[in-house]
């Protein structure tokens, strides 16, 4: 390949990545603005009007919906951050750190819906925990009468979101810790007499937090606008705003789509308000604590912190493992009356009964995930390779662009894209769904791969060039092979993200394309726990296979190239 062609292709990939991240979000948002104010000729809206906003404000319970979305977004993010900070502060230097890290990392691959279903089955009145406590401890002969999931305050929703956000923030922290020289900072602090938690909060956290800011914003944006988790764990009357918007835009009455557009814009505003509130809180905390690191106190609730941090992270691990156990039990249960702790007999019948229905959605999910991941991987590799052309660090804007699809509520911009599709007379289908998945897969693939790509020792390139390799040769024959393991890991991450997607499949496929995830969410709202458990487990199966391949393939193919395996 000639050098100029290589450069042109790499630049093209980088530009396509930027376009894929930026254009659909911007266009989608624009696409809901016009209908919200009455303009959508395809559905007979020809002149601007505020009537749809008035209709929206007349909806019963709107204030409750907004409050739920806002509060669950902020509360779950704050909880997750507190748990992660306490845990790192207390355990960074203990051997538990590695163990918990290994336990929590795979949780990132668990689709949101599967985690939510598992939690619902665990803590509901007739769930596993209540069975294990009955009747010997609780005295319950019948399922007790409390509302979970779906309590009116959204506590179940907040708990479910927190469980998924803790592993995400923890992994982002692990990547950020070396960047802010956490170990050196901690050594200095401890050599000066600081206990671990005080040292972490005063010396490391101020450097770590700025690196966690964008991931936190993404967490808040997701939590304040989630649809699938809220459908499973959230209250239903009123539901969180995003769920209500989904209902309106699926209303058979097409005229409802105008109000749904207004609702989607309102969701955007709610998420922005939640983000702005967090930002304000950040400032206030930073200001209040300005002199705190210098007050000379060497301890900060070390014992309470250790108890809270260890307890909370332990609870997260236990809840997730117990959820998984519950799913497995339910999927194998035949007759399982209430206080029994164990279903008898165990049967494969639910799996056989489901087999007729789940093969197609599984294949569909694998196909969509595979293609979307491939697209993302090509574009991300191109974008990272393009960075090597310029010999300076990437600008801060790149980071924001990367997070754009994670910061704008997907219900808002995806719905705009659907309306544009309608207006343009395009038929929704597989291509649109794959494209939609790629938007969400790309940021995660980038985040997963960027560190390894940028950290690759530049002397490899210099060496290869001095031996006569062209830039294209260096890329194909040196850089990509050296990065085999990180590339495969990034692919597995991307695939897992795609499998977990609910909204893009539903909206861009116009309900005609069903994956294992859309089916699982639909089943979860019905009453068939056994079949729901089967689907939730299958949802876990695909990402697990992806990671098994990503970790196993290099070991198999590269067993005579051990130097490539030990590479980070």
């Amino acid at each position, binding site marked *: 390949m000639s050098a100029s062609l290589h450069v042109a292709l790499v630049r093209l990939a980088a530009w396509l990545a930027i376009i894929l991240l930026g254009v659909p979000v911007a266009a989608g948002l624009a696409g809901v603005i016009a209908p919200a104010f009455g303009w959508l000729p395809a559905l007979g809206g020809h002149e601007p009007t505020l009537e749809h906003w008035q209709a929206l404000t007349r909806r019963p319970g709107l204030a409750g919906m907004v409050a739920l979305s806002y509060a669950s977004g902020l509360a779950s993010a704050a909880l997750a951050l507190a748990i992660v900070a306490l845990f790192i502060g207390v355990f960074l230097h203990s051997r538990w750190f590695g163990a918990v890290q290994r336990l929590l990392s795979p949780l990132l691959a668990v689709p949101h819906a599967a985690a939510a279903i598992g939690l619902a089955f665990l803590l509901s009145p007739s769930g596993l925990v209540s069975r294990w406590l009955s009747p010997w401890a609780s005295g319950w002969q019948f399922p007790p009468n409390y509302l979970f999931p779906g309590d009116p305050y959204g506590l179940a929703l907040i708990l479910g979101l927190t469980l998924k956000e803790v592993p995400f923030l923890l992994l982002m922290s692990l990547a950020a810790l070396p960047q802010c020289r956490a170990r050196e900072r901690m050594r*200095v602090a401890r050599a000066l007499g600081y206990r671990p938690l005080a040292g972490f909060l005063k010396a490391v956290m101020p450097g770590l937090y700025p690196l966690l800011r964008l991931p936190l914003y993404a967490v808040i944006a997701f939590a304040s606008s989630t649809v699938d988790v809220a459908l499973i764990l959230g209250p239903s009357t009123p539901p969180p705003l995003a769920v209500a918007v989904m209902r309106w835009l699926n209303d058979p009455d097409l005229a409802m789509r105008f109000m749904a557009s207004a609702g989607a814009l309102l969701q955007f505003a709610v998420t922005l308000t939640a983000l702005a509130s967090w930002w304000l809180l950040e400032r206030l905390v930073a200001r209040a604590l300005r002199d705190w690191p210098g007050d000379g106190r060497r301890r900060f609730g070390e014992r309470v912190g250790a108890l809270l941090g260890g307890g909370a992270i332990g609870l997260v691990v236990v809840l997730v493992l117990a959820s998984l156990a519950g799913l497995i039990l339910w999927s194998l249960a035949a007759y399982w009356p209430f206080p029994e702790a164990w279903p008898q007999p165990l049967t494969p019948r639910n799996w056989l009964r489901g087999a007729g229905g789940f093969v197609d959605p599984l294949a569909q999910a694998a196909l969509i995930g595979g293609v979307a991941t491939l697209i993302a991987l090509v574009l991300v590799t191109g974008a990272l390779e393009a960075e090597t052309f310029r010999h300076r660090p990437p600008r801060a804007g790149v980071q924001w662009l990367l997070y754009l699809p994670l910061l704008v509520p997907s219900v808002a911009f995806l719905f705009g894209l659907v309306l544009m599709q309608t207006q343009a007379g395009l038929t929704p289908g597989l291509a649109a769904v794959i494209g939609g998945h790629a938007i969400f897969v790309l940021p995660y693939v980038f985040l997963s791969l960027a560190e390894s790509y940028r950290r690759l020792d530049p002397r490899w390139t210099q060496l290869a060039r001095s031996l006569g390799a062209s830039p294209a040769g260096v890329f194909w024959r040196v850089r990509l092979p050296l990065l085999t393991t990180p590339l495969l890991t990034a692919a597995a991450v991307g695939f897992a993200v795609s499998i977990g997607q609910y909204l893009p499949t539903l909206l861009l496929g116009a309900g005609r394309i069903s994956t294992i995830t859309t089916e699982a969410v639909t089943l979860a709202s019905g009453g068939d726990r056994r079949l729901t458990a089967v689907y939730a487990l299958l949802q876990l199966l695909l990402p697990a296979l992806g990671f098994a391949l990503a970790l196993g393939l290099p070991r198999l193919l590269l067993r005579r190239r051990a130097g490539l395996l030990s590479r980070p």
Partner: protein
Amino acid sequence: MNPREITMPSSDSLILDAVRIALDGRSLLALDLAVAPGEIVTVMGPSGVGKSTLLDYVAGFLPTAFSASGAVRLGELELTALPAEARHVGLLFQDPLLFPHLSVAGNLAFGMRAGGNRRERRRRIDAALDEVGLGGYAERDPATLSGGQKARVALLRVLLSRPRAMLLDEPFSKLDATRRDELRRLVFAQVRERRLPTLMVTHDAADAQAAGGRVIELDLPSDAG
């Protein structure tokens, strides 16, 4: 206040009692040593001989891959079982490692023991800065300081924490020749004035000469090839 936090002027020796450190069962180094108050003992030897590991061990940072036997004491006080933060052993690293999120004064306040109101703490910081020729630098961003200035701030930060012994991990190796000389004099004068038993690890024979104390040569274990 925690009684452990109250410190008398140091008059205790730093004692390494039959210390043996091994990695994967392979013996790395063995040392028996008493460093008197105000004495500076230099540890020299080729790379990989475990000089930094020795300091890690004394300071309480020994990575779990290593195993160690023997004991570290400060006078009568047994340090071996104490966590790093309870040992009151000051560490000066190769890099100054000033916290980038704090000003120069903030870094020094971080090192200072708790107690005293804000104005009083600030007065002590200004006095300390004056003493090393950095008067008026309190509000500066550490990133704007020169290498020699950073090293002096790092030294003050350790001294303000009132350590009872000092460990120097090649603290002058990243400075140019003139700065190195200046800082060496400053550090040695300070540890002698405070009568701190001091252990210095270095590659540089000039460091050992300037310290003027005992020099311990560590050798690679013979089976390491």
